[in-house]
């Protein structure tokens, strides 16, 4: 299926097993940095850039790959799309400073140019706006930003949709990515390992009482968290879409380095065969 799509000259929307296939037109560009804003969470930033292309082609689940002048670290680094403003032609990404690329990004100034490739990703989130569905989005750490975008997208397309976002972190000051969710009419549940904010416990503790036959779960974050969310959903017969975060050397499907094992034994490229999979396909 994916190979077939790669051979196509035009881009279309496909749906199968509940996941949307949407290859955006990939473009490499030098986008202009609009702002780099530090968050209250230590070492976390939101970078907003001007890109009419990314703003019009990005969908929830897509990511972009950034190249910065980082000396001996040569590869691009992937970042999920956080917010999109098509009218202003701007998108933003949320990141924490981890290595040389993110260090360079944290020091960028408005007007600087940023080398970006995107939008990337083959299978992305499919909210399937069926009436009566309760959309439950479960995120941890850097997995929250794409879910924020998804939550707002669902509400924008179906203003009466029931959307709950469960956000987990080790401690209160690491809760990120919740901007404007309440304004968008989304229910937000916070969970912290140390009880410093919201539910004292794991995201699965908050998820369990919400799981009903009309639920649909979407998750992104650390692999152990997604595994737990995926397995809990599966045990309750609830569809779960997982957005896998792996080390992606190229982001466009040519290096075959970002693979994860599927239950049928095949190694799947998370960049173009994913990053979003039905949880029941992944061999955790």
């Amino acid at each position, binding site marked *: 299926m994916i*190979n*077939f799509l*790669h*051979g196509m000259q035009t881009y279309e929307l496909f749906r199968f097993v509940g996941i949307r296939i949407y290859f955006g*037109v*990939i*473009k*490499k560009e030098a986008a202009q940095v609009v702002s780099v804003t530090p968050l209250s969470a230590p070492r976390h930033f939101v970078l907003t850039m001007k890109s009419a292309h990314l703003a019009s082609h990005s969908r929830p689940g897509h990511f972009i790959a950034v*190249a910065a002048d980082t000396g*001996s*670290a*040569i*590869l*691009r680094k992937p970042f999920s799309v956080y917010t999109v403003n098509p009218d202003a032609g701007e998108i933003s990404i949320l990141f924490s400073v981890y290595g040389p690329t993110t260090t360079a990004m944290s020091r960028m100034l408005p007007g600087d140019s940023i080398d970006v*490739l995107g939008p990337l990703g083959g299978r992305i989130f499919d909210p399937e706006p069926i009436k009566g569905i309760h959309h439950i989005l479960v995120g941890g750490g850097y997995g929250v930003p794409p879910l924020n975008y998804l939550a707002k997208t669902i509400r924008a397309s179906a203003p009466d949709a029931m959307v709950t976002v469960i956000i987990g972190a080790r401690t209160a000051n690491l809760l990120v990515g919740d901007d404007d969710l309440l304004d968008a009419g989304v229910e937000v549940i916070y969970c912290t390992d140390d009880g410093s904010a919201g539910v004292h416990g794991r995201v699965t503790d908050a998820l369990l009482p919400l799981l009903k036959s009309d639920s649909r779960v979407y998750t992104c974050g650390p692999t152990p968290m997604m595994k737990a969310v995926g397995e809990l959903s599966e045990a309750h017969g609830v569809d779960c879409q997982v957005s896998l975060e*792996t*080390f992606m*050397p*190229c982001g*466009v*499907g*040519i*290096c*075959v*380095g*970002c*693979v*994860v*094992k599927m239950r049928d*034994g*095949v*190694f799947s490229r998370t960049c*173009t065969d994913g990053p979003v999979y039905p949880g029941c396909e992944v061999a955790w």
Partner: protein
Amino acid sequence: MSTVNMTVQIGSLKMRNPVTTGSGTFGFGSETKDLVPLDRLGAVTVKATTRERRLGNPPQRIVETASGILNAIGLQNGGIDDYLANKAPYLRGFDCPIIVNVPGENPNDFAYVVERLTAAGAADAVELNLSCPNVSHGLDYATDPQLAASVVAAVRKVTSMPVIAKLSPNVTDIRVIAKACEDAGADALSMINTVVGTAIDPRKRKFRLANITGGLSGPAVKPIALLAVWRCYNTVKIPIIGMGGIACPLDAIEFMLAGATAVACGTGNFVDPTLSLEVIDGIEKYCVENGFADVNALIGAVTAA
């Protein structure tokens, strides 16, 4: 437009410019179709295609190291049947020669795949992957002159397409292997394949690659590759496709000056899939600025310091 002759010849394969892609660094040409029109390339060298489908190695398959990457993909591919049915038709939609990289566990495997490619007209040249370091149990044909020659000879019998032997740097003297391949009937050589290595996570006290060993590529290996090209250029008469760490047009110029007739952009494609296009334009610009009317004048034109 400039008047520089950019055409080069690899055996009977005519390339409109000296730039191709490194096998395994450009997929099967369709992945980056938004970014790279194939008919601008001198040739497209596609990912390794084996006799049977291969699932590849478990992750972690790639790690980043200083100025390079280590990979142990394990030749994941759909096999020759998949290539002929699903990959070749797309590639044939472009006016661009196709070089198919062929690995094998014995000379018969190599010959089988090349025979199928020849019969189907699904390639314009074959590159024999004598030295993929990531496949366990396979003999490394690139480290022994007789073994390398046996593969070239087996393939030579079944095709009239140009046969390119891809050589490994993981040998004491690459010239010996180069000569053996030339004598066995190879039309060209490509070099270098990756440099075998490993990486360790000191915090976890574990190897970083599931396969333990991987192949180093990227700018870190360029000096090794340049020397291999120059040494072989002075040893054999057949053309050389030079590769290893090309990240900009001037890197490609260095390979041509060392004796390469053509060059391949490899790991650089992961950073910028449009690198090949930049290199093509850059080589032409270099020729114009330095008064070369023919790109072939660059080949082996390096002189002592």
